[in-house]
């Protein structure tokens, strides 16, 4: 059941680095993160890697495995041939700190810029009433585990550092979509989505949806509907007027 596999892991820091080759034991049912842990315990005690839950729930162990953005804890070794070299490199879109750990602060900065959730008042009995069908649209986006694989794969920022200032990336476009579809939220974020978070930069190639480990349909269910709503607001005066009237009613 066990075999010796060949692993190439990028090691280095902001100043540079290279791929180092390791021969390492692989056992039945193991995932790439198990192998990285074995390297730490037996061959490279200071190999830097982020991880937490090892169950696909926290989104910490993102990396590029044979060039594809993946969670290391959810990539089974069984998906590779025994004689296949497995190459693990850090996320390319973010600056390297050390080895497989990158500086993901870009994401936290974008998150802090998003206008906060602002709920309507509770009902007289102190509750909020919402129908399941209405919460499900936003719930899909709230499944996001913030692994930032969508950010990593997005070509708008992957090799274009200059776009990071004006483009929030798919993770935060669906955050905007989530708030836009949230049954309780009272803020209109359509203008900022376009003007401050760069919605227009996305040309819906759907690469983000393909790498999402949670299977979120970022483009189809989040970004495209958000683009449509922005267009409604910008070019349809009746829709604009309607939104004002509806809001006034809600405040009554």
């Amino acid at each position, binding site marked *: 059941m066990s075999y010796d596999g060949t692993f190439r892991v990028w090691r280095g820091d902001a100043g540079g680095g290279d791929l180092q080759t390791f021969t390492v034991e692989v*056992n039945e*049912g193991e995932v790439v993160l198990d192998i990285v842990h074995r390297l730490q315990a*037996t061959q490279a005690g*200071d190999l830097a890697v982020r991880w*937490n*839950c090892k*169950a696909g*729930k926290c989104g910490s162990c993102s990396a590029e495995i044979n060039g594809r953005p993946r969670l290391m804890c959810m990539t089974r070794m069984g998906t590779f041939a025994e004689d296949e070299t497995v190459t693990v490199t850090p996320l390319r879109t973010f600056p390297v700190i050390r080895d497989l750990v990158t500086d993901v602060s870009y994401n936290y900065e974008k998150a802090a810029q998003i206008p906060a959730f602002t*709920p309507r008042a509770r009902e007289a009995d102190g509750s909020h009433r919402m129908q399941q069908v209405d*919460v499900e649209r936003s719930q899909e986006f709230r499944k996001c585990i913030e692994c930032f694989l969508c950010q990593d794969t997005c070509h708008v920022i992957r090799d274009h550092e200059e776009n990071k200032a004006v483009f929030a990336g798919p993770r935060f476009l669906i955050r905007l979509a989530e708030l836009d579809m949230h049954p309780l939220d009272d803020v209109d974020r359509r203008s900022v989505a376009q003007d401050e978070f760069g919605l227009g930069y996305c040309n819906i190639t759907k690469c983000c949806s393909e790498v999402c480990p949670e299977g979120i349909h970022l483009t189809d269910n989040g970004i495209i509907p958000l683009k449509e709503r922005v267009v409604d607001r910008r070019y349809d005066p009746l829709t604009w007027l309607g939104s004002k009237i509806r809001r006034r009613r809600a405040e009554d």
Partner: protein
Amino acid sequence: MELERHEYDVVVVGAGGAGLRAAIEAHERGARTAVVCKSLLGKAHTVMAEGGIAAAMANLYPEDNWRVHFRDTMRGGKMLNHWRMAQLHAQEAPDRVRELEDWGALFDRTPDGLISQRDFGGHRYARLAHVGDRTGLELIRTLQQRTVALGIDVYMECTVTRLLTDENGVTGAFGYWRESGRFVAWSAPSVVLATGGIGKSYKVTSNSWEYTGDGHSLALQAGATLVNMEFVQFHPTGMVWPPSVRGILVTESVRGDGGILKNSAGNRFMFDYIPDFFRKETAETEDEADRWYEDKKNNRRPPELLPRDEVARAINSEVKAGRGTPHGGVFLDIASRRTPEYIRKRLPSMYHQFKELAEVDITAEAMEVGPTCHYVMGGVEVDPDSEAARVPGLFAAGEVAGGMHGSNRLGGNSLSDLLVFGRRAGLAAAEHAAGHPDRAPLPDDALADAARAALAPFEREGGENPYTVQHDLQQTMHDLVGIIRTEAEMEQALARIAALKERVANLSVEGHRQYNPGWHLALDLPHMLLVSECIAKAALERQESRGGHTRDDFPGPVPEWGKTNLICSRAPDGSVALTRQPLPEMPADLAEVFEEVPA
């Protein structure tokens, strides 16, 4: 010494549910507040909670109220809970859930549009507010987004290695940035520990690497006390196959939503393990158990939904008796009981987890499950109303605090615990800071000593590698201080822990200070060993079986022990001292709850 310094009113250590809720409250009470966490924001262990938040909101069962929840909690903990914590928890949990909605949380709904509630072990009524089986993610994301919206300072990937104190109490904390290895000190009159649990000292666990017991250890070293550390919860259902995923949690919701446990002979064995304590409220036949899901008035709860300690012991016994599955677990079957659509809708993460990691389709076949170290009931001894520890200015909330869950925690009561007591700790910490406007300076010698201790592993050469020592500790706790315990084994464990301490004092790490996991582990190990020693010592002392502490040599509960808490403190020579302390007496109006016939 190069040292980054900061000043705050309240420093919260840990950014899980309790830490973030404490920080939000402290901030809203006007305290300058910082959160310090070992991982990135939003990755704390709370994210792995699946089933839901227990709160007697009565959205589905109008009969439910805080007294019923209080009763369930106390009985689940075999009456060793601090009654006042259990009371506050049951009373305040509904409001804590409702306010999450004001911060953006989107729970699943009832047909009336209210927050849906699901069945769980030990709870009389469907009581867990939930989002599919990813409630912890919803909780942490909601609190994370609220924290960010309020502009609270967060020190991410930053580890606290010491609490700083003087003769009047807490003065601050010392730690290092994981990224750079550089040191940082916070001066603050109030520190809230919200560091979670201890599971990483065990080989098979549902816990993440962060669960090293550092908060327990920091508190003890600062002069605080720990209560009832012998009570460790083994969740009955962790994955058992393949080996690399052994221990990963399989949510209790599988059973709450209709799943049953079977042995290799196909028998629904839990009917053979109903203890007298719960017999009156547990179904006698499979038919009755199956009817309960739809009609709770005329039927009693299935034995699969007994409290976790009972189910974990039963599974352990079945496997030991040779009726286990090929990989040493039992079968958890929901495939034959619910439609694939229902299963995928209610348990999407479980479906995904088994499909991806074990190549098992849970809508078509049974899962293999077995006990996994999940939670520590023991923790920092705190005042129930303020979460204040015995050191002035030190507070603890969430899993790191003790008392709330007695000898065994009910599922769903953890997320509500985080919210109720996180808020109370934040409030009390802010008040304490407001009452201490004069800030004590951090003494240079204490800071220099903390820095020296942190760098020691780099000074030594040719020592052992920290991963080997961690592995040996995990094996020791797994083999000798696990679900079933005996005096001889625990004495052996204590001897091994003493030997491991010497090995830790001599280990060395390779590389340099920048993001070096080997060094980080070397600094975590002393905490893990200290907490393991507390667990083993307390477990050796308590000569009875109760909740999450089962002694093969003392198989039943002992009434006298039912009135006794075990307190760990640090003796003057640095060793762990153990004292017995009477359980606080419950007032008569609450004691009445247990006279009432279960509704």
